[in-house]
């Protein structure tokens, strides 16, 4: 199923949020097998969604992602632009 850009971005952000916290936890608990399993699962899922996102929206990483022609990296919007981000479920300010 094709997801739209913002939904895909939301899923990646959610998975990365989990991955960052598990990574920090694992730094001080390197022997926790359950956390390690969850971390590897999360990273693998996020990698798959990144590939899908890049096919649809262009490169995510400055020099780790291939680009279509012409060079796609410079394309707007950038993450600090209003249009780049998706609406949160709460009240919008």
């Amino acid at each position, binding site marked *: 199923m094709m997801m739209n850009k913002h939904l895909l971005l939301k899923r990646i952000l959610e998975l990365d949020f989990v991955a960052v916290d598990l990574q920090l936890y694992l730094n001080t608990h390197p022997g926790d097998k359950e956390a390690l399993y969850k971390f590897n699962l999360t990273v693998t899922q996020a990698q798959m969604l990144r590939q899908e996102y890049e096919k649809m929206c262009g490169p995510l990483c400055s020099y780790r992602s291939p680009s279509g022609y012409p060079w796609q990296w410079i394309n707007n919007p950038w993450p600090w632009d209003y249009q780049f981000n*998706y609406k949160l479920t709460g009240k919008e300010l």
Partner: protein
Amino acid sequence: MWVYEKKLEYPVKIKKANPKLAKYIITQYGGPDGELAASLRYLSQRFSMVTPQARATLNDIGTEELAHLEIIGTMVRQLVEGASIDEIKAADLGAYYSDHDKAIYPVNASGVPFTAAYVQSKGDPITDLHEDMAADGTIA
């Protein structure tokens, strides 16, 4: 080294300008306990940190603070972008505007520019970790 990823760690989507709020939030960008100070604090302290756990943690939270810096910068920018000059003056950001327009510049809530004197890096792991708790213990 670092690789930039073209996304925020957490999305920011603010339609309505609110320069008063921007004036308070900007200290989290360039103030004493802001994200710039936090990232420099951790990324500097890691060089002399001793245990594998603590070295990795300083490296990784220092990196994450840079992502937070980007989120705060985005918030301040979106809060001032559509504001009128009168709104900016009413928010007591007139002096900021005369120097920086609506650009993002690292200052605290009262407009004092960022200084490296906000952070410490002493070469003693216990001293540095205590400094981290003082600076980052209440504001993540």
